[in-house]
């Protein structure tokens, strides 16, 4: 393999990994507060659709991104309201969100083009790649890591910031407490329900941005079901990452690498039929899950929030 080939592989790896990592970080913060949000796929789809539509009509990529983030917050707020306030089942509510987002995004995709037509095939302002002076000079890593779009660079800064927040600050400690033992957190005066709302909505923001990255940077266009299961892969990555931001980055790069390999093989004109190449990420997700979750005790040792998925009702205190 030549150096340019390695650089191109690594570049696609990072590019494909960015949206996955945004979504995974969003789900990590949501789950850390004890809320399981299975609506990632739907939120990402809505983020991708609204970002593209707004960018197309306003001619501003940034406005598109902002709206995608807001839509993510709004949708996850619905989930928070249903599960935290109305005590609805978190699994069913998340699934409802995904089905709803899938329907609404494909509806919008067919209506939000010029004059109520389809958005498929349109071109909108996108986030283009640009290289960072000096850093791009690092051999191999420079041109692959520092020749990316702005959302990737923001992510490079956001990742350590989120890790620091989670492990080294008091609000981060409170967040972990709410997810592990809401009753004890409540006794200590932490507002359980408010935290759950806050971090679910924050997570939704990141998921919306993840969708925007797909339609405005990585794939640069709108197609029905553009996410192709990436939202679900993000949920699997949370388990892979054992709820840790840095390990999530490793996982996102791993899956980005699978994507890059897929492209590479397709471009090289392989004998393997396209559907089989497209199966790779899903197949790999199952494999990863099998190797990671080896028994409940192992999962607990890995650091799953102990109260994940359980609603918190003060009167039901045991």
């Amino acid at each position, binding site marked *: 393999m030549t150096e340019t080939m390695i650089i191109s592989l690594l570049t696609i790896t990072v590019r494909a990994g960015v949206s996955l990592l945004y979504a995974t970080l969003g789900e990590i913060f949501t789950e850390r507060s004890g809320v399981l949000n299975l609506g990632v796929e739907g939120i990402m789809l809505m983020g991708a659709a609204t970002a593209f539509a707004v960018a197309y009509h306003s001619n501003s990529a940034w406005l598109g991104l902002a709206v995608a983030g807001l839509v993510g917050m709004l949708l996850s707020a619905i989930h928070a309201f249903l599960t935290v306030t*109305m005590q609805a089942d978190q699994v069913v509510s998340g699934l409802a969100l995904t*089905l709803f987002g899938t*329907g609404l995004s494909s509806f919008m995709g067919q209506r939000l083009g010029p004059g109520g037509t389809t958005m498929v095939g349109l071109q909108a302002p996108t986030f283009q790649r640009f290289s960072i002076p000096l850093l791009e000079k690092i051999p191999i890593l420079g041109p692959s890591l520092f020749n990316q779009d702005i959302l990737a660079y923001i992510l490079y800064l956001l990742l350590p910031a989120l890790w620091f927040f989670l492990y080294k600050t008091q609000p981060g400690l409170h967040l972990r407490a709410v997810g592990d033992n809401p009753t004890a957190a409540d006794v200590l005066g932490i507002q359980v329900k408010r935290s759950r709302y806050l971090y679910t909505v924050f997570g939704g923001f990141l998921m919306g941005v993840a969708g925007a990255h797909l339609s405005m940077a990585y794939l640069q266009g709108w197609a029905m079901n553009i996410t192709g299961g990436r939202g*679900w892969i993000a949920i699997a990555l949370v388990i892979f990452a054992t709820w840790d931001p840095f390990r999530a980055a490793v996982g996102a790069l791993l899956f980005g690498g699978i994507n890059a390999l897929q492209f590479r093989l397709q471009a090289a004109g392989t004998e393997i*039929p396209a*559907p089989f190449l*497209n199966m790779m990420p899903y*197949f790999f*997700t199952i494999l990863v899950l099998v190797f990671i979750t080896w028994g409940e005790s192992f999962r607990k040792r890995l650091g799953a929030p102990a109260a994940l998925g359980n609603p918190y*009702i003060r009167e039901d205190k045991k």
Partner: protein
Amino acid sequence: MKIKFERRLKEAKWAVFVVPIVSFILALGFGGLLLLAFGINPVKAFQVMIQGSLGGRYAITETVVKAIPLMLTGLGVSVAFRMLFWNIGAEGQLALGGIAASYVALFLSDSLPNFLTLPMMVIFGMAAGAIWALIPALLKAYLNVNEILTTLMMNYIAILMVEYLYLGPWRDPDGYGFPGSAPFPDEAILPRLIGRVHLGIVFALIAAFIIWLIMSRMRWGYEIRLIGENPRAAKYAGISTTKNMILVMLLSGALSGLAGMAEVSGIAHRLYQGLTAGYGYTAIIVSWLASLNPWAVLFVSLFMAALTVGGDQLQVAMGIPAAVALVLQGAILFFVLGGWVFINYRVRIIRTTEATQVGELHD
């Protein structure tokens, strides 16, 4: 002002009926506002939907046709949901059933007596769906791998397998490049009863009866319910979660596989792209709205099918994306979920001035 929930001593009977109805009305209102926002007259759109799904013999039979796969997959997932096994994989299990039934129709029917072709398709379809469901069941039972994710990932793999087959080795050589397998021979086609309504409706009715029998009249059903409602009690009662998980998923997958068989054999008469049209996902909404009750699954399926057929009509008659149906279905589920709390809780709205107890400061 704050909202406070007080647990009811008994489930509120009235809420079981009122909540779904109010939810439906609210979802329609929401859908109407959405259509309005896109510059579409909601009254006219709903009229088209009702006319297209319930107005006349053709419309009604089409609704029943779309309800058949929903009934079978809805019954399938509701059994699994009973024991809180989140089988989100009905779509993939349906696809595998369709593939296996197509295999019989395309490659085995020549060497089979005609009267055996359909029964073999049923058996192959159900077995394939069951095996596809068995994989996540084994992974969950023995390694505790999250079944939501494995069943979902297997949907994507199954859909790609269907795609591979009808675009690749099974593609009709005389199909002028049309993506799909060769048409099935006559003996591999399910007889039709009225319009396009085929024998699959009978399969669905039998399946509902069997599920009802298992759940309400048999010890096995009691075990499944106990595992779902109180896993600890089930464990002390000596009920094996592992064994039941595997058996329930075999049953669940077999029903979805049968749905796939009925689709290829009763509707398309070939393996084609439209096989995986999202029935397996709508089935989740169906089973939840039906409170996992098999008879209710049949009715809710008809209702959801009417929405789908109505949505298709919107596309044909007014050029409005058929996805409206999916949005409405999702919205109904949202409202039902929000309303469910009223069944188990009494909701009291308290003015802040009344909330003086120390314990309430942090709510």
